């Protein structure tokens, strides 16, 4: 078969697609982080653990209650988002007036607790979750498994819908305004504390939704979030903290760059995102899409 720049097309497009799939998760998780940071000023270190909880809840729904993937796709994010409501009301609300560091430490502690509980209950080895969309299609230049295509389409749709709500609707205008001056928005008659709680729950639900999408593609394991979250933080730093479109574009873009690095220089594939982060921090400390404060 013909080669493209010395690489067989199957390998090139295969890695490109894996990059897009990783990028889908980077985008969804960094989007949630950006939304939460924008309004709450909290660096939600529990985000990876909440992604992991989404996958575990999907596994439990299937194996304990017989609820299949498509049901779990709706139920699991709602259940995990409900834990987000409690976390915000009980813990994070008390930290609103303090430095970012306190929120980061609290959510880091929560992440360790969530992972520890899951590890003690289910072990560290990981558990399989059946593929709800088996099979695929041969595109000539590559084989496209249906489920991988679904991950990309679903995450793109979720990211764009979130962007639309935040940038183009009245609710989004309240969110953007409350990010700048919450007390002014509250003086307009808007219940900002409730909006903050719901925003945190939404961000957490988004992480859980990514977790459900990830369950059939990867092993459901207690470490699945912590493996991903460090890269996601790098993605958020590169895109710019608090930038919605920045989180989406950077998430997908860096997934693709990582995938292509695996083809052209595999040794650098684990570090390329962090090298880009260092370069961006030197040139544009606020991130590619972030506004300097």
């Amino acid at each position: 078969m013909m080669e493209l720049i010395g690489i067989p097309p199957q390998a090139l497009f295969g890695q490109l697609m894996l990059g897009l799939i990783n990028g889908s998760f980077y985008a969804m998780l960094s989007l949630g982080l950006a939304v939460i940071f924008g309004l709450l000023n909290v660096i939600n270190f529990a985000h990876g653990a909440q992604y992991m909880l989404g996958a575990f809840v999907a596994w439990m729904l299937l194996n304990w209650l017989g609820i299949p993937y498509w049901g779990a796709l709706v139920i699991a994010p709602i259940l995990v988002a409900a834990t987000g409501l409690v976390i915000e009301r009980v813990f994070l609300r008390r930290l609103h007036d303090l430095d970012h560091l306190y929120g980061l430490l609290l959510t880091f502690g929560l992440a360790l607790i969530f992972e520890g509980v899951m590890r003690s209950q289910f072990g560290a080895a990981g558990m399989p979750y059946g593929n709800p969309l088996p099979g695929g299609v041969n595109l000539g230049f590559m084989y496209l498994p249906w489920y991988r295509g679904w991950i990309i389409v679903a995450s793109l749709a979720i990211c764009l819908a979130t962007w639309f709500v935040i940038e183009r609707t009245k609710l989004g205008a309240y969110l953007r305004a409350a990010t700048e001056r919450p007390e002014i928005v509250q003086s307009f008659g808007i219940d900002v504390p409730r909006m903050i709680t719901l925003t945190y729950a939404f961000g957490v639900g988004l992480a859980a939704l990514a977790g459900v999408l990830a369950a059939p593609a990867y092993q459901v394991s207690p470490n699945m979030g912590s493996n991903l979250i460090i890269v996601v933080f790098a993605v958020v730093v590169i895109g710019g903290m608090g930038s919605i479109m920045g989180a989406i574009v950077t998430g997908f873009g860096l997934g693709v760059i990582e995938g292509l690095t695996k083809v052209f220089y595999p040794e650098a594939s684990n570090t390329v995102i962090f090298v880009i982060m260092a370069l961006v921090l030197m040139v544009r400390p606020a991130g590619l899409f972030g506004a300097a404060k």
Partner: protein
Amino acid sequence: MPETLLKVSDLHGWYGESHILHGMNFEVRKGELVTLLGRNGAGKTTTLKAIMGLLRQRKGSVAFDGTETISMAPHKIARLGVALCPEERGIFSALTVRENLHLPPVLREGGMTEAEIDTLFPRLKERWGNSGAKLSGGEQQMLAIARILRTGATLVLLDEPTEGLAPVIVQQIRDALLELKRRGLTVLLVEQNFRFASTVADRHYVVEHGQVVDHMTSDEIAANTERLEAFLGV
């Protein structure tokens, strides 16, 4: 005499350990434009924040239209019909001028329509699609006032609307305040410039060290110029 819309009694307020308001007492009647005059740090802005519920540590009594609001959250006070136009205007740079204007929900009937706001502040419409951050100080002030006029609020708290503005813009703000009065809105205005205040307001409370220390009508201002200058440090 019109009935009292806002009655503030023995209002105390704190920022952390600092005791700022030491028992404020005053009232504003329906349809009146009343000012709080005082020098920087006298507690005028803090009083407005306490009335709006934005000052967390407060005690005493703030009765709005007969309803005690001292323990209410700001959004609940706003829904009763109180609106605040803050000193720094509170225009959102992430939103366009139009988005800023339409941001506060219309809470009750009687608010201005967009057409009426266009007539009052024609310059704003020319900036419709611009970011709020691109407006001049005067335009930001017009937008901040216009924004709360849409909501149907019955009591407007205005914090130094003329501060730092060119005389021609101050004139426009003055016209806008007189229009509010003509429409029957009740306004509590915080000012340092008593000469400006005397051209728009009915009555004045002089504030010092977080307390009301004097009270006069606009007609009495001319006779008290020296005393006011001493109070206000001008």
